[in-house]
């Protein structure tokens, strides 16, 4: 069932992306409302699918009734796309950034497409070791953080394009559609300030859970190292902004690096990890 809803949501997200491109490239003002509506529909269908999957997950194993089905790549990627799209909708509406969809939606689309193409939608009960109160919110916090930082990555990308356009002294049509550098830089900073403390909290909760499950707080496992590197990159970015007045291009570039580290944590480290054989 979730494969069907996720596929439908993916198609709607794709249509929303095309409509947002129409606004950016053809400057069709009606496209703004269209892409937001399509994305809202995509999020709605995705949410219904996720609720149904959760119901199946709880029915399969009643002991898992306090957890969400994010213990497989399919479930995790689906949840990540859902959170990313939700944040995108919220930011586009609140900050009136009509081009945000062009930059964010490829990320959530990639997550949805990867879930559908490479991973089975089969529901698996939770591993015995995962049954801990700490583990109820640990993955949710981290996934939500990743979704927020995916938006920050997109905003940083928009910043770099805008910076390049204005620097070039030959600004193209994009320049007049993308918000000002300061708006993008501030939004980037705000998203990091929301996400980074949550990222630290998520890692801390995971660590506390590991003490109970594996008898140690920190084991320098591939996933643990990658998540620590991610945290360090984002913390450095915030620190440099706060302490040394870092703004603009360098902060945006560091944001890209931080998101690359998230991808490494999410995919590569998972495959290399000896103990994180489940998500």
């Amino acid at each position: 069932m979730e494969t069907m809803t996720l596929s439908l949501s993916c198609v709607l997200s794709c249509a929303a992306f095309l409509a947002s491109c129409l606004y950016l490239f053809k400057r069709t003002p009606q496209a703004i409302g269209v892409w937001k509506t399509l994305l809202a529909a995509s999020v709605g269908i995705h949410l219904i699918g996720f609720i149904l999957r959760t119901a199946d997950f709880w029915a399969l194993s009643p002991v898992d009734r306090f957890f969400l089905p994010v213990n497989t790549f399919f479930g995790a990627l689906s949840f990540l796309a859902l959170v990313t799209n939700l944040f995108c909708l919220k930011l586009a509406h609140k900050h009136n950034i009509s081009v945000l969809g062009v930059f964010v939606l490829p990320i959530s689309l990639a997550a949805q497409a990867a879930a559908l193409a490479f991973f089975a939608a089969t529901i698996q009960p939770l591993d015995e070791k995962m049954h801990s109160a700490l583990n109820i919110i640990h993955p949710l916090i981290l996934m939500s953080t990743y979704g927020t930082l995916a938006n920050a990555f997109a905003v940083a990308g928009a910043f770099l394009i805008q910076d390049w356009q204005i620097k070039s002294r030959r600004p193209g049509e994009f320049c007049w559609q993308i918000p000002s550098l300061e708006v993008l830089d501030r939004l980037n900073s705000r998203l990091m300030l929301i996400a980074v403390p949550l990222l630290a909290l998520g890692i801390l909760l995971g660590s506390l859970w590991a003490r109970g499950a594996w008898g140690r707080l920190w084991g320098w496992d591939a996933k643990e190292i990658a998540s620590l590197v991610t945290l360090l990159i984002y913390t450095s970015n915030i620190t440099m902004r706060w302490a040394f007045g870092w703004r603009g291009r360098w902060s945006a570039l560091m944001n890209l690096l931080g998101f690359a580290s998230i991808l490494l944590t999410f995919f590569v480290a998972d495959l290399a990890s000896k103990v994180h054989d489940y998500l």
Partner: protein
Amino acid sequence: MIICKDTPTTLTDSSIPALGMPTGSHLHIVGTNHKTGSIQMREALAKLWGGNIKGAMQAMRSRFGGRQSEICILSTCNRYEIYAVGDPGLGRDIKTALLAEVPVVTQDEAQALYAYQDEDALDHLFRVASGLDSMVIGETEILGQVKNAYEVACSLSYTKGILNTVMQKSLYVGKKTRTQTELSRGKISVASVALDLATKIYADFNTVTIAVVGAGAMGLETARNLLHSKPKSKIFLSRTLERAEALATEFGGTAKTLEDLPEVITASDILVTQLATETPVITQALLKPLLHGRQRALFILDIAMPRNVAEDVATLSGVYLYNLNDLKDICDANMRNRSGEVDKAVALIRQELSKFLPNYFRRLLTISR
């Protein structure tokens, strides 16, 4: 929407009446513009009857009496046009009357006045309102000027069924061509482009400090829109404090001399430079230490020739350097885009004209009965 007495009702019958045209209800446009007439001729026309539009309309009314049922005059720096409704020969007679009033010497000058009637007049008016007949294609000011001319004529009750219909339709077409084509898109003056670029760098313009270095007219012209956009503060630098103070008094701001340049660069977000110097005044060596710890971008508009800002300054992070050529290139690119939209706008006008003409002729018949 302008509401006048005798506002026409919409006619739905789209067939052009087969009956003959009424004799006293033809739309005429007589006038000259920047393409056909010299500036002297436009000036002479604008000064007619005391240089007052109301006076001019009253004079035309008294001159042509019952032959002319409606009148409206559009007078701008680039055109002088009389819109009148009357018998078929009215346009020719208005033209003769105008030529008698202005000092026309050569045959070319006599040719400068054009006269259009009915369909040709409507086509011309729609083009004027759309900015296709303007010196700067797609400029928006003309639409306001047409509206204003109509309002003045309306207030004097000089417009009735025909002109009310025609002028309101022209305002509608003028708006439609601008919204459905990109005829008015992109700024085409360096001052507007400079302001647009600044709004793509800074979030709130009222937190921005602008510094104008040098007191040249071109620099002030480029900074005109920036200075009028309610920035947080304005600083004027000149070689002499007196000149800087004069500008500070004129535009409202603080005055400094060139010795204060480093301090002013640190304090400002936008720098407009126009100093007469042989070598660049703002170099990487000067700027680098000033940028240390700086949190906002520095937007430099170098209007001087020879340039005041060294080229390699553009490579510094957070510095956006534009010179006069860059701004002009953007204006030219926007102008090319506008020119590319002309065909679309013309097609739209033709479409509107073909829809409107049956109603127009029908209206003429309604009035003549």
